[in-house]
């Protein structure tokens, strides 16, 4: 029998077998993983990836009124955008709108969350009220504010009149229209931001505050040295999500101002809508959409690059 070098022989066959079993197992777990991912892959493909690629494709064409491609134009749609004063204005408006909306939302929500985090009687009621705007639809909220902004019957102007000030044409005065839309948006976003910040506050270990109490720290010292730094991951999340959301604002513009006066509240998404469904320029609208996508991508990447390293995760 060939038992002279049995170890070498068995070793080789053994290694070979082990290799094969390993590869089989890898294949099996890969297939299993794909099976779990399948529902999301299908949903994302149909509703996100396909429309995205279709948009990029359309942005290089001229289309007819049905949206079918007619002439390939290359980069012409994009070139036209950057000399179009209306589009440039809408980009400016969008950045201004983000600037008017996001910081006040976060600051107001933080104040409300700090108040609602106190252990007081009936605090559940206030928490519900503060977060309730989350449950109001964009349309309902816009109509509600439309009444408030009404130049003759609106509550805001009534208040101004009774305190002896001039009435303001909230939605038709170019000076005020964007601010009015921002106020509506702040009000609508407070609910969500408040809820996230309150959750962040409640996850801070109470023994940190107790220890600070015993060491004799004052209220604002604790707020500055414990609460704000411990909330930094929550701030980061809230600010990133708010900026993305604000970039995509559409509903309140459509109901309150339709982009007016003189394109003063014409934001990018509203401009896309008008280009595509009023002017039937699907190619140009797609190019705007791609530009918006790149803008949001850059903003978010910039945030992660600059801010995230300063965020403290536990």
């Amino acid at each position: 029998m060939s038992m002279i070098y049995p170890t070498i022989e068995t070793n080789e066959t053994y290694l070979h077998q082990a290799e094969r079993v390993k590869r089989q197992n890898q294949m099996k777990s890969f297939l299993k993983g794909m099976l779990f991912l399948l529902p999301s892959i299908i949903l994302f493909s149909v509703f996100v990836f396909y429309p995205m690629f279709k948009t990029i494709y359309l942005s290089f064409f001229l289309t007819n009124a049905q949206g079918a491609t007619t002439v390939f134009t290359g980069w012409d749609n994009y070139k036209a955008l950057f000399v179009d004063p209306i589009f440039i204005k809408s980009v400016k408006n969008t950045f201004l709108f983000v600037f008017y909306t996001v910081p006040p939302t976060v600051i107001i929500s933080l104040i409300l969350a700090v108040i609602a985090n106190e252990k007081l009687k009936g605090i559940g009621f206030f928490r519900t009220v503060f977060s309730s705007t989350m449950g109001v639809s964009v349309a309902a909220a816009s109509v509600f504010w439309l009444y408030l902004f009404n130049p003759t019957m609106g509550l805001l102007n009534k208040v101004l009149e009774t305190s002896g000030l001039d009435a303001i044409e909230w939605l038709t005065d170019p000076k005020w229209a964007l601010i009015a839309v921002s106020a509506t948006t702040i009000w609508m976003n407070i609910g969500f931001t408040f809820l996230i910040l309150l959750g962040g506050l409640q996850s801070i270990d109470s023994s940190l505050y107790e220890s600070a109490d015993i060491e004799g720290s004052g209220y604002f010292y604790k707020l500055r040295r414990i609460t704000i730094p411990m909330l930094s991951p929550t701030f980061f999340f809230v600010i990133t999500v708010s900026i993305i959301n604000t970039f995509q604002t559409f509903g309140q513009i459509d109901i309150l101002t339709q982009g007016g006066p003189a394109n003063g509240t014409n934001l990018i998404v509203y401009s896309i809508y008008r280009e595509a469904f009023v002017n039937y320029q699907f190619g140009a609208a797609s190019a705007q959409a791609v530009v918006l996508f790149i803008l949001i991508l850059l903003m978010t990447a910039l945030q992660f690059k600059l801010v995230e390293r300063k965020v403290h995760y536990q």
Partner: protein
Amino acid sequence: MSQIELINISKSYDKQKDVLNSINLSIEEGEFFVLVGPSGSGKSTLLRMIAGLEEISGGFLKINGQTMNHLPPKDRNLSMVFQNYALYPHLTVQENILFGLKGRKIDKKEQQRRLNEAAEMLGIQELLKRKPRELSGGQRQRVALGRTVVSHAPLCLMDEPLSNLDAKLRAHMRVEIRRLQKRLGLTMIYVTHDQVEAMTMGDRIMVLNDGQIQQVGEPITLYNEPVNLFVASFIGSPKINVGNAVFSENGKYLIVENQLHIPVDPSVFCHIPRDRNLKVGIRSEHLMPGISKKENLHYLEAVNIEQLGNETSIAFELGSELWTAKWPGQWKIDLGQKVSVQIMPEFLLFFDADSGNLIKSAELGKSQGAVSV
């Protein structure tokens, strides 16, 4: 300086049943006082009431003779170490230690002086620039102690500070905390559920159960003369061996768990009531190997043997109870083997089976005297 008095302290939540019930206690200056009890006994609540983190529902808390009931924690001049250390994860060790001093706007030079002093005392000079997450459990513990040191408060409260450490480190930190306390002359109130910590660290111990004080005293007193069955079985490791006992009809034997017949020695048994349900207890070191002497020998079946090297722990089955004996040295015993055990009647503790109160403790002084002669 710091003498703490609790007068009729009680605590109840939402006017429900009391969590703590008329606690009367005084703690001397410079004393290491341990509150020990099972979880839910109210020991942490009591500590937090002393700290001012929980409201006091009834009674008075006096520190240095002044009533402190309604003072906020910062005015009580004390420091506290929490179970999870309560370190600020976003601050460095140095900032953590100086957090309180900065908040109270203490002079920068003084801060630095106290920091250096504490860091040197605890051996954490090299860690001052690190964040808490870069520290090991023992190092975090030292940082938490550092806060106590720099606060210069005469009274220190600790809430299970060692429960997050592994066994070896725990034994080490026990010694360090104790040394620190003596060195700084702190009055310490220390909460733990670990009776070994209580025994080894405390000048005096208070055993708490269900919101009631069971016994207050020195560790050895609690071990030798527990006032009731709860204290007897809570203090000491392994647990004290307990069994139901009755006197035989002719009164010549004490029958434990229907199995052990212990001859009644009038000198030992004279004050034991004959007509009541009894429980007897005996510490595991008093179940002695029955080799040298011939008297009081009993044969018990060994059901488990643990070899610890320096000693051997043997479990015997006795009626429904499992009794443990701890014999010094290494003993070779097989499972199921009948082993002769010497049970001296004077080592027995007698408890009233209904109330659980102690009737008679073991006569240890006499036996130790006999050994030393």
